[in-house]
């Protein structure tokens, strides 16, 4: 009982703290929700934090989880103590090495935040589908159900693997445990040392591969011996469970916390028992206790901790002898199996136990599924399972937590059933990502957890959007450890940190009777009541809530805090919730401000102090009347004009009530409707651009750079204006291509995110007052209704004839974007490229999208941004995985080719019936431009009309594939993490095949989606996660590598620097009938500056030579020209002009100026050398050669 220290932390930190200290070599790769463990390890190593043996572990980021597994395998062979962290698809990539590591009986622990595997859709949330895919690898599998358990069992795993030589997969629930913050008792170095056997470590080292005592491991074996050798490990697996129990017992002696392989809780004479693993076991445990107290029911829960190797003896011994019925709950689904894995093991174990005489009677067993993708698992659901067990014929293979109205597997449950005791204080906070609510709540948990005797728990629910994202924080405080692994209902305290949440969400549904409601409101206590929707008033009156308001933005502004209202709202929480004495709470808030910002300077601390001090004077109690008086109702979530699916399904998801939708509401195979973002009017911009037509020069740059397609340009005949709204603006179109037409720039006021890129790029200034441009940002609220009508009218304007549009920056913006209002960050640097792609070619594009930011803003529900034109055509979009996207896209191309070939063959075969003229015209069609495409579409229409008159099987098939006679393009999209790292092997191969695919790399130079980890694209001298001290190697030159093939079209572009070159590169890449690679500079929030300057920064990147622009077009060689053209001017100024504006570089400079200087000097030299190389390669060819380093451009035309 030596250890009484406690701390508040999340599950990831609790585990990483043990793993780091117990390891010598750590190989990492980012994947949600495990990334934090790798990040912490890297940060600790960078800070020279030492492991148990006084050394700083080597922490290395690899190119994929497969790479990380290979690296730890090698390190283990070298006799080191190694670890890694992963989840989901990443874990799948480790499986081949897991077989090897286990087959070689190697002590090793990997820590896994159990996460859903992508099936019909990707999900980042938690369930056991990933770890269950490893149960056959030979790894021992140890499961933790809470932050404390994860901390403790991480150590048990490290100890047991050394004793047993069996490698361990230690897992805990993704998000529910990995991201839950809880107060735990921490393990000291001393405890770790006591648990880890030095002797076993020495044995491990002795088995290492070393030339000083060489051995061979990893032979190839034949039928004569492989089988016997495979069986030779049996003794180790037989001994493993008891060794794990020994480790648990030793741990109990040291810490006082006893764990069991199978841990039974509940009535010793229970007749009904639930068998379960992970965080759900906590909830089941809590429910059983309460049901026993309340109803006297004889119930029990068997928590499975060691899932592999499964010990039949320990399992049956843990069950009460009285048990008659067992329900096994699996957090995974294995379609087509007899039952899910835990269920199957329990059934088999009981059968074997009876056969062996360990038990006399087999209890009856049912199995069910719960909690997939972090679906809530509540006491009500636990009760439903026990109630089901009571029945004579309980439902087997049931589900709980959903309504399955199709195959009727689901159990009904009473959502009002509540087991939480009254001494737990529960608080729910609705905040915006940008207002710092979650950070403040994490801080409150630390204050209560670390400064009082209370226990604390925090869990946070995040938005699927990256701009204007909403967060919901669930905080519990109480005198005992908190075991509620589910969201809060009946809260004592509810806060809405934004007033407009009241219109969108049923915020007070979370409030319990007599609770407190805190609202950040621009209206004061005397005015607020009449502004509230009726639903909110109803909650306030019926639940007798205490009601407080504060104008937090006013306080923030007055104290120089900008939009950060976190400390202000936190102060209010402590002031009115009563969880701590007010003065003590304020002193603690200040203490933590000092701790957070102390290093950043006294002035920062003082500003935050001022915000705290000003808060209380602005906090007012509102007297809640006895009666509801409001005539205002919450507005409908989506417009009545929305399609049925959007109204029925999407709207529920948008209202945060997707849990209530039944199975029948959904598509069966993951196919999802297009164009649903347009129904989600998010209204996240406080200011929107307003157009002054009188000074506009009609360049359309604003529309081109808009990341959300929320500002658009149109050219249209004057007569269209006849029924225009009065405030709709237009001007005469100035260019000759649509002479006599009218021109309009229109903002989508409810879809704009207020990023200001359009205003930044606008070149049209008022000559007498250059501050005023053709676009100025103006407050949205007064303009919302007017501009909404204008935008509705705008959308009805006819599209201009695409065949007459000039393909340049301006012309491209008259084309309909088929990608709109995505959930990307405000000011995103990637989406303008994606949008441009859809404008130029989207009506005949297939898009293969690598997992990452672009797949999230491209396909994360509730709404999707890809849409169709008036003919119903648009980009067909698919996401396979992270690592395989180039191959996925190539497959799409091969299929298009195949369909095209089928169509061509049938066309030839049916030529006599169809008519030779039409067939010849179709087969010989040139489809290099919009005119060619339009003509071919017309011919295909004609063909279809003819086919309709033919009844032959050939004609039927040709009708099915006839559209493939119109040229399609395949775009392979992804970020630099995919293209430079995990997907590079595939990308390289796909480029080498010569097939007509177009690769668009949205290069943010960092793994943006998972939070800014370094990739091989990260520049030298920039700080990123996994490269805290600044990356020391230069950015990989992907373009140059692709050029080396000679037959790959390669372009490096930056829209903010030269948009004309961007458009040219897209059209050239698409028209090139071989592989094309476009590397697009994409500014990103992970660079650390105001995204409104993103385009300006792109310009500086190009001007300083940091990001040279070029196009390498193999077709030029045939004309005697060099394939490579440099499109940017020789550099002006130094790289520092570029780097000084970005936090990612400044962090390194601030931390170690000398190192920064060296890195920047090296980067400058690298940049200069690289430019010289490009210039050399771009030199005009001399007679008889095709130019430097360039093979001829033939061999690329596999597709036509």
């Amino acid at each position: 009982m030596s250890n009484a220290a406690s701390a508040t932390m999340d599950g990831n930190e609790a585990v990483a703290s043990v793993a780091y200290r117990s390891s010598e070599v750590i190989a990492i790769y980012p994947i949600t929700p495990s990334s934090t463990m790798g990040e912490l390890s890297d940060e600790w190593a960078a800070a020279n934090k030492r492991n148990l043996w006084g050394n700083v572990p080597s922490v290395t980021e690899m190119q994929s989880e497969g790479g990380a597994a290979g690296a730890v395998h090698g390190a283990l062979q070298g006799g080191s103590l190694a670890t890694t962290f992963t989840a989901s698809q990443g874990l799948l990539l480790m499986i081949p090495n897991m077989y090897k590591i286990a087959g070689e009986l190697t002590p090793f622990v990997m820590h896994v935040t159990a996460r859903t595997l992508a099936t019909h859709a990707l999900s980042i949330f938690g369930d056991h589908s990933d770890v269950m895919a490893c149960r056959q690898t030979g790894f021992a599998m140890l499961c933790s159900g809470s932050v404390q358990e994860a901390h403790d069992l991480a150590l048990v795993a490290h100890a047991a693997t050394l004793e047993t030589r069996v490698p361990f997969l230690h897992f805990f629930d993704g998000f529910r445990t990995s991201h839950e913050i809880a107060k735990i008792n921490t393990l000291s170095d001393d405890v770790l040392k006591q648990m880890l056997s030095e002797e076993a470590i020495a044995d491990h080292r002795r088995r290492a591969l070393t030339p000083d005592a060489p051995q061979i491991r990893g032979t190839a074996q034949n039928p004569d011996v492989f089988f016997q050798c495979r069986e030779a490990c049996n003794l180790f697996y037989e001994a493993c469970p008891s060794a794990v129990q020994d480790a648990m017992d030793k741990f109990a002696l040291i810490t006082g916390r006893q764990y069991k392989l199978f841990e039974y809780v509940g009535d010793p004479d229970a007749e009904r028992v639930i068998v379960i693993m992970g965080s759900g076991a906590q909830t089941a445990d809590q429910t059983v206790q309460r049901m026993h107290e309340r109803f006297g029911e004889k119930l029990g829960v068997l928590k499975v901790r060691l899932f592999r190797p499964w010990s039949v003896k320990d399992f049956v011994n843990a069950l009460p002898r009285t048990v008659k019925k067992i329900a096994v709950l699996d957090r995974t689904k294995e379609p087509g199996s007899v039952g899910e894995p835990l269920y199957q093991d329990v059934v088999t174990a009981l059968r074997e136990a009876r056969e062996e005489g360990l038990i006399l009677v087999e209890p009856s067993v049912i199995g069910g599924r719960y909690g997939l993708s972090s679906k809530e698992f509540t006491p009500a659901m636990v009760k439903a399972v026990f109630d089901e067990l009571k029945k004579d014929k309980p439902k087997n293979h049931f589900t709980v937590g959903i309504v399955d109205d199709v195959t009727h597997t689901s159990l009904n449950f009473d959502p009002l059933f509540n087991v939480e005791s009254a001494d737990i204080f529960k608080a729910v906070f609705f905040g915006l990502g940008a207002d710092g609510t979650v950070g403040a709540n994490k801080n409150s948990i630390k204050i209560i957890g670390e400064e009082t005797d209370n226990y604390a728990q925090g869990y946070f629910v995040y938005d699927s959007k990256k701009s204007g994202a909403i967060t919901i924080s669930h905080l519990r405080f109480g005198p005992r450890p908190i075991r509620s692994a589910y969201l809060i209902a009946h809260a004592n305290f509810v806060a809405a940190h934004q007033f407009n949440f009241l219109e969108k969400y049923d915020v007070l549904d979370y409030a319990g009777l007599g609770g407190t409601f805190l609202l950040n409101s621009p209206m004061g206590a005397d005015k607020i009541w009449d502004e509230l929707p009726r639903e909110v008033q109803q909650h306030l009156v019926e639940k007798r809530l205490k009601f407080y308001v504060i104008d937090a933005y006013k306080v923030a502004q007055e104290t120089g805090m900008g939009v950060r209202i976190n400390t202000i709202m936190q102060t209010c929480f402590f002031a009115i919730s009563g969880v701590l004495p007010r003065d003590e709470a304020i002193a603690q808030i200040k203490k933590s401000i000092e701790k957070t910002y102390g290093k950043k300077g006294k002035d920062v601390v003082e500003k935050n102090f001022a915000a705290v001090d000003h808060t209380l004077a602005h906090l007012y109690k509102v007297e809640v009347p006895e009666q509801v008086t409001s005539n205002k109702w919450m507005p409908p979530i989506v417009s009545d004009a929305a399609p049925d699916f959007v109204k029925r399904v999407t709207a529920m998801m948008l209202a945060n009530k997707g849990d209530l939708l039944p199975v029948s509401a959904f598509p069966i195979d993951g196919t999802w409707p297009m164009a649903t973002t347009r129904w989600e009017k998010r209204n996240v911009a406080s200011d929107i651009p307003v157009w002054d037509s009188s000074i506009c020069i009609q360049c359309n740059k604003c529309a081109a750079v808009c990341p959300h397609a929320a500002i658009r340009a149109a050219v249209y005949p004057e007569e269209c204006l006849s029924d225009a709204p009065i405030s709709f603006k237009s001007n005469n179109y100035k260019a000759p291509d649509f002479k006599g037409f009218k021109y309009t720039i229109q903002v989508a006021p409810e879809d704009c995110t207020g990023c200001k890129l359009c205003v930044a790029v606008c070149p049209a200034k008022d000559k007498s007052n250059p501050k005023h441009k053709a676009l100025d940002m103006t407050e949205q609220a007064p303009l919302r209704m007017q501009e909404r009508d204008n935008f509705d009218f705008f959308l009805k304007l006819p599209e201009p004839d695409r065949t007459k549009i000039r393909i340049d920056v301006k012309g491209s913006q008259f084309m309909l974007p088929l990608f709109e209002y995505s959930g990307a960050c405000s000011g995103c640097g990637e989406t303008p490229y994606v949008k441009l792609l859809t404008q130029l070619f989207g009506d005949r594009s297939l898009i293969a999208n690598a997992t990452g930011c672009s797949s999230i803003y491209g396909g994360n529900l509730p709404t999707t941004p890809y849409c169709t034109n008036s003919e119903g055509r648009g980009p067909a979009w698919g996401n396979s995985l992270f690592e395989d996207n180039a191959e996925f896209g190539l497959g799409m191309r091969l299929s298009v080719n195949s369909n095209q070939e089928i169509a061509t063959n049938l066309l030839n075969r049916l030529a006599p019936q169809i008519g030779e003229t039409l067939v010849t015209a179709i087969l010989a069609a040139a489809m290099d431009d919009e005119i060619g495409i339009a003509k071919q579409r017309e011919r295909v229409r004609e063909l279809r009309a003819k086919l309709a008159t033919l009844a032959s099987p050939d004609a039927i098939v040709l009708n099915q594939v006839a559209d493939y006679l119109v040229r399609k393009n395949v775009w392979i999209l992804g970020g630099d993490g995919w293209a430079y790292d995990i997907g590079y092997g595939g990308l390289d191969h796909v480029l080498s095949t010569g097939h007509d695919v177009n690769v668009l790399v949205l290069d943010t130079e960092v793994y943006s989606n998972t939070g800014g980890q370094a990739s091989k694209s990260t520049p030298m001298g920039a700080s990123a996660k996994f490269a805290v001290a600044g990356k020391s190697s230069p950015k990989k030159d992907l373009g140059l590598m692709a050029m080396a093939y000679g037959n790959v079209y390669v372009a490096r572009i930056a829209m903010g620097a030269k948009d004309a070159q961007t458009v040219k590169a897209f059209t050239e890449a698409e028209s090139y009938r071989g592989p094309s690679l476009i590397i697009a500079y994409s500014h990103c929030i992970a660079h650390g500056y105001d995204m409104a300057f993103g385009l300006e920064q792109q310009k500086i990147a190009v001007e300083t030579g940091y990001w040279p622009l070029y196009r390498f077009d193999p077709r030029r060689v045939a004309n005697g020209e060099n394939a490579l053209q440099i499109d940017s001017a020789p550099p002006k100024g130094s790289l520092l002009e570029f780097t000084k504006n970005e936090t990612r570089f400044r962090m390194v400079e601030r931390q170690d100026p000398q190192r920064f200087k060296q890195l920047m000097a090296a980067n400058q030299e690298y940049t200069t050398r690289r430019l010289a190389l490009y210039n050399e390669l771009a030199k005009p060819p001399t007679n008889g050669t095709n130019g430097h380093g360039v093979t001829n451009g033939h061999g690329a035309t596999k597709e036509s």
Partner: protein
Amino acid sequence: MDLKTTYLGLKLDNPLVVGASPMVDDMSMVRRLEDSGASAIVMHSLFEEQITGEKFATIYHMELYAESYAEAMSYFPKNDEFALGPDQYLEQIRRIKAAVDIPVIGSLNGTTPGGFTNYAKQIEQAGADALELNLYSVAADPEESAAETEKRMIELVKSVTHAIEIPVAVKISPFFTALANFAYKLEEVGAEGLVMFNRFYQPDINIEALEVKPTIQLSEPSELLLRLRWTSILSRRVGMDLAVTGGVAGHREVIKSMMAGASVTQIVSALLRHGPEYLTRIKQDLINWMDENGYSTLGQMKGSMGLDRCPDPQAFERANYMRTLHSWTPQK
């Protein structure tokens, strides 16, 4: 040849001080400057607003997107060592002090008394031998009178001289209605040196883009004349040591400054143009000139052409204006 001089109580080998410039960021450059004969080094200015602005902007951009999205709790590595503030500057003072034997003068550019004294103390603690306060502010507020502006500046200087022990020099611009009076007031509140003059960034206008571009150009010898006039006027009228900065291109400008009454000259542009070793040449040229003209110590010429001693004092006051105008004829 005796080139010794005293500035801010510091005994210097010669009057060739390296003025505030980015050269001090590079340690090898600092050593070359010392080797080339610099008698003291002024650090480049620590800009209070810049530090504060950068600090708040950095924190804002790092925190803005944190804790809002399930896959990314943050977008930057956690790094407690990543200090925001003058640490780097202070560290450089420490490094330079450790590397060279000549005095190091800190330089501070600020506008608020709180920030000013705070940073001044830190510069003192970092080991600076003296502090140069750069009163760089453009009096653009029509609500603030000249008297109020001056009062604010004087208060600012006072807050610093009272807060630290090391000597304080004040670097000013020439744009004062009553410069002599202002200098006198500076002395009253404890300034021990006056540096004339700082050079403002001069915004240029891009007439096509309708944009303002801040520019800074290296100084030219023609700029020296203004400095000479004011040095002569103030020489011996105030007790403060005077330093001339701006337009000191070679030994002749050094000599003129000394004769006008300066204790030292600050040289920057010439070194940026020709490299730190150019100091050696200026020094040698100075020695040669003194030798040729029969001077044995620098003290002999110091203030010889000050207002109270020069044979034609009116030249420094109003008469010079008319004389110069008349003598100026357009070049053909």
